[in-house]
């Protein structure tokens, strides 16, 4: 089952990179096998960053949690 803890565990791996660069990623909700997240800080407004972080985080989540389905960037 996809739990908040497991998702946070994966986010925590990427988070240090983001925080050191003046940004962060916030886990808003876990719905079934999907999760909603929000980017904050430096990279929040940049379309390139959205692509990088969206794909990077989703890949990480799917690798760690095989049943994980979709990451929704709000």
């Amino acid at each position, binding site marked *: 089952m996809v739990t908040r803890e497991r998702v946070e565990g994966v986010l*925590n*791996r*990427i988070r*240090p*990179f*983001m925080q*050191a*660069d*003046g*940004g962060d990623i916030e886990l808003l909700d876990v719905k079934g096998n999907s999760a909603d997240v929000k980017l904050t800080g*430096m*990279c929040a407004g*940049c*379309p*390139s*960053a*959205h*692509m*990088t*972080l*969206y*794909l*990077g*985080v989703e*890949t*990480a989540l799917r690798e760690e949690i095989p049943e994980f389905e979709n990451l929704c960037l709000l």
Partner: protein
Amino acid sequence: MIPAPVSMDSVVIGKSARMRAVFEFLRVIANSDSTVLITGESGTGKEVTATLIHQQSRRKHRPFVAVSCALFSETLIESELFGHERGAFTGAIKDRPGRFELADGGTIFLDDIDDVPIGMQVKLLRVLQNRTIERLGGTRTVPVNVRVLAGSKKDLKQMVADGKFREDLYYRLNVLPLTLPPLRERREDIPLLMDHFLERYFRKTGEDVPQTSDVVKQAFMRYDWPGNVRELENACERIAQTCTCGTVRIGCMSPHILFRASTRSADPAIVETAAPSEAAPIALDDRLRALESNLIAWALKVSHGNKSRAAELLQIKRSTLGDRIARCGLARAHTSEEREPELATES
């Protein structure tokens, strides 16, 4: 076919001991006419090095012909390298010189020599030994004055041992062996290469080169670069194309690199957990302590030395973390010297 003049500085970059050894060797063989076998993984710069060898040689004003042996089937490669006469095969409507003839007086670079089919290897060996070629379907023997450079992704010696490469051809090629190290074995060159390529690609877009955040530099240092310098070059091109905010931050990087770099941070611990392959005794307590110490060190690094945050990462109590740090003797190590590039931005 004649490349633009190049200098050592502009094509091959590196300050690492491994690259300095390569440069020294290139200097030594500059005036030689002997065959060079350049071995290196994909993207380590075999063709760049071949170009450089040619540019430094007495043949620099003569043609440099590079050909990838992986591109052709067995019959095609023969016609490519040695040429053919009109009517040699269906579609051979006129005489065509091969790459060896085109390179006459100059240098030929046979890249992907490890992909040459075994049947073709014997023909190549004959050419290298006699320095003459015969066009496909022709009867005339043409002498060629060509310096041969060969490139290989794989260790040819191993291929010989496996029966996939002719031993005689291997010895014929391996006169001056040159091995290009993979980028992950000369990580200290990564910042230099990064600056070089970022500069090149930002100049191309007509912009000034922006600052690069430390996190991006550290992610680049951590990533394993399976595609070597070529991959790093592409990563820099991507950054130059996508960076919109005036500073290169992690958002501009490829998601793949960010993700892989983030998994690498706990790597020392992963290595430690590997079980020995033989039935050798291991001290379990020592191994566990090493693992614990590695993971705590990692948590302290990524949390910039903030112990509460590190404790959160490890999902243990703050007070427990304090005890464990003391037990592992990390307190001193952590405050003094860092063992590997790390995330905290001290500057």
